[in-house]
């Protein structure tokens, strides 16, 4: 093989350039602390790193929201603590009224005291965070509770819904408080413990003499409601007793192609004004009330006009009604009643109300405990996000950060190669026949 000076020079330059390029890359890695800064360094690692950064940002977003939620819940807790203090104060005033000398001056003084405490309670329930009033439902920027200047009663301006914050993937928690929840003590507790309490079932068949379901009832429920299957069935009539005790009658005509779903859809239109909704699930109709009253919800269905139990009029459904739901103790109504009782100097009524205040205090305390539990849950979630962030950051660092020990050792190796190339080149270039001529 013929090796010319140019071949030696080209080889030398190639290796020197390669070495310099490698030293440049290593120096960049050391100076920036990152071995992957752009996609061309390593496309897969770069994309992976960016996705990790996005996941870290997501966790930080959740942490921010958890902080917002905690702030709101702290304000709620503080306000409810004030409410409890107010209720204790009211209770002790009522107790004093019951046990004191019963002169009208002291009743008036206590009444005035209660009126001022009622205003303080309204103020406590009008607590705000950055987003608005927290006891008024969702994002409300009008006061949750106001005192009607004419009647003196407390009016709720908020909604029943709470503002939910996403604090983890597919996990939201309610941070603002449903106004009614606080105001009416038992209403939602009962709903929570017994969701069927104001649902009426329309499934149980009426039995005939032989203990079998009545033929028309059986056919109606197992059919797809095609008129031809039930002789003479061209309408269903509902007689409903609403929770407030009023009665409503609703009739729906059935066509040849009417299905259960059609029936439910039409009936829902008629039921909506009464805060009732109907659903059909596997041969069972449900009617649910979204408002409460002291009467039980009763729904009866007939194949002819209600009350007309002549020939051919069969009960389409029997009904299984709920129990009566306790409406509970309304905080402001109770205070108003107490004020009225003080005005009337009704000692007996006042005595019975002491128990109601205990019930209210216990309810609010329970709610504070629930807020505390939510706060604990948020703390746990925040810690979980923090741990995830640490792991993600560690993984990210593994992908993109410079391993100094490895890089420095590589740099030393490259430096030695560079210096050797220089030395050998100088030596080789000096070796020539010229030296011997």
């Amino acid at each position, binding site marked *: 093989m013929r090796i010319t*000076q140019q071949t030696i020079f*080209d080889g030398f330059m190639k290796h020197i350039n390669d070495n310099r390029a490698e030293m440049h890359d290593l120096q960049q890695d050391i100076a920036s602390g990152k071995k992957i800064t*752009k996609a061309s360094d390593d*496309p897969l690692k770069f994309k992976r790193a960016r996705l990790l950064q996005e996941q870290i940002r997501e966790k930080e977003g959740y942490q921010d929201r958890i902080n917002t939620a905690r702030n709101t819940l702290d304000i709620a807790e503080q306000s409810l603590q004030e409410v409890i203090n107010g209720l204790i104060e009211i209770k002790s005033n009522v107790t004093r009224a019951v046990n004191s000398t019963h002169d009208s001056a002291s009743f008036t003084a206590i009444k005035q005291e209660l009126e001022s405490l009622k205003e303080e309670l309204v103020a406590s329930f009008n607590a705000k965070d950055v987003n608005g009033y927290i006891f008024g439902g969702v994002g409300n920027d009008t006061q949750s509770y106001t005192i009607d200047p004419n009647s003196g009663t407390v009016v709720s301006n908020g909604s029943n819904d709470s503002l939910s914050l996403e604090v983890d993937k597919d996990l939201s928690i309610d941070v603002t408080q449903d106004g009614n929840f606080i105001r009416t003590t038992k209403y939602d507790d009962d709903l929570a413990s017994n969701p069927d309490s104001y649902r009426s079932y329309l499934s149980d068949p009426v039995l005939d003499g032989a203990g079998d379901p009545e033929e028309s009832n059986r056919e109606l429920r197992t059919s797809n409601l095609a008129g031809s299957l039930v002789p003479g069935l061209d309408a269903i009539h509902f007689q409903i007793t609403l929770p407030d005790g009023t009665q409503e009658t609703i009739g729906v005509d059935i066509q040849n192609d009417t299905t259960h779903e059609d029936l439910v859809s039409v009936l829902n239109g008629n039921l909506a004004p009464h805060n009732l909704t109907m659903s059909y699930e596997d041969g069972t109709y449900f009617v649910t009330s979204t408002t409460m009253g002291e009467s039980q919800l009763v729904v009866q269905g007939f194949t002819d006009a209600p009350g007309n139990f002549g020939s051919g009029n069969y009960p389409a459904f029997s009904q299984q009604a709920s129990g009566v739901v306790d409406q509970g103790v309304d905080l402001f109504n109770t205070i108003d009643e107490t004020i009225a009782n003080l005005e009337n100097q009704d000692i007996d009524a006042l005595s019975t109300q002491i128990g109601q205040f205990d019930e209210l205090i216990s309810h609010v305390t329970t709610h504070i405990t629930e807020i505390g539990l939510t706060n604990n849950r948020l703390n746990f979630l925040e810690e979980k996000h923090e741990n995830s962030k640490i792991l993600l950051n560690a993984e990210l660092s593994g992908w993109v950060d410079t391993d100094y020990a490895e890089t420095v050792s590589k740099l030393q190796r490259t430096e030695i190669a560079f210096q050797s190339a220089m030395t050998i080149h100088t030596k080789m270039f000096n070796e020539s026949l010229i030296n011997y001529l």
Partner: protein
Amino acid sequence: MKTLLEITKSGMDVAQRGLETTSNNIANVNTEGYSRQRLVTKPLFARNGLFFDGLGVRVTDVEQLRDFRINNAIYRKNQELSYLNIKSNNYSQLEASFITNSGNDLDTRVSAFLSTFGDLAANPASLDIRNKVINDAEQMIDTFNNLHNSISDQRKTIAEDVESLVGIINEKLNDIASLNEQIKQFHVNKRSTNGLIDKQTLKVNELSKLLNLDVHRTEEGQVDLSIKGISILSGTKVHELYLSNDSSSDLINVRLTQGGQGVDLDEGELGAYIELFNNELPELESDLNDFTDAIMNQVNNLHTSGVGRIDSTSRSFFELESTNPNKLIINEEILNDVRNIAAEDPNEVNASGNGLIAQQIADLKDIEFLNGYKPIEFAIQFISEPGTKLHAINNNVELRRSELDLLKSQDQQVSGVNMDEELSKMIQYQQAYQGAAKIMQSAQLMYQSLMSILD
């Protein structure tokens, strides 16, 4: 006696020519494109009865040591390597504008924009967060616009480069044609074409970096050049290239000046530029437009179904600028009053002031609405595109460079000047000259001896 002097003289002449050749080789040791030369000599004879008597030596040629097969292989590698180098340079520039050191790139901007809607869902009434939504939207739009500008600026630069490149190619074609002409004349006149061939090879070598060439060499030493069967130089006849402006398609077309035939360029600098300009950059631009449209449509679909805090009017969040259909702008009404940002779902009658629409916009992050990609994934994929291409190109560049280095080394083995070798030749020719001179001296002494007899 006379013959002896003639023979000696021819030996001295050849040694002198040999020294001249060696001297020329050493002088051109670093000249680019120079191929070493060697003296080709032949002994002279004369018939003398039944024998041939030696009559000295004669130079028959000064040959150039060159392997055209290696040259052709180098041309092909040049085309591939310069094609990759242009792609590498352009994608490096694009990557620098797509991925910044700060990390505030398209993925971060889109993520920030959508996340702020999540914050708005948590605080629908907050004017600060509403202002932040606008701020983040503007930053995201700026990033979209910067990316658009980077791609279109790159295309503009390429268009200018291509124009000057076509000029350079035509100039080189004419230079080679003129060298072809000179080589032809030298050949006819039996003069050495070595220097001209060196120049011609150098020019073809330069040209091979610019476009895909097929090189054919004639017996006389002329080169004919063609691109995929279409001749651009035949002997002294040049078919110049020109850029045909097709304003409707916004594409670069290279054609022959005579006849207007289109040429298919897919290698060399010009090939790389044309591929970038006609295909690869428009594809990037189209991906970016698809992304912009998808973000706009998804956000607008949700935003129009929600309501702001002043009225129940349905509003788009984004609009397209009337003068530039690829440029996003924020709805003027929203810019004028941030309360017009729709965070609330009006269908949730029991939850007035809710942030459900804002949450749905924030949740777009998890929806695969871009060919199976979630928006942030798509943004990362998009900004990585130049770098991913660059990574693959750089690997190829390394490979091609090694191949080219090997070919150059092979070329050096044949054509390169070796100083030690030339200096040895120098001593060889020097001694041959001195030997011939010594014989001449002896001949002179012999002649003088003969003359002294006569005295």
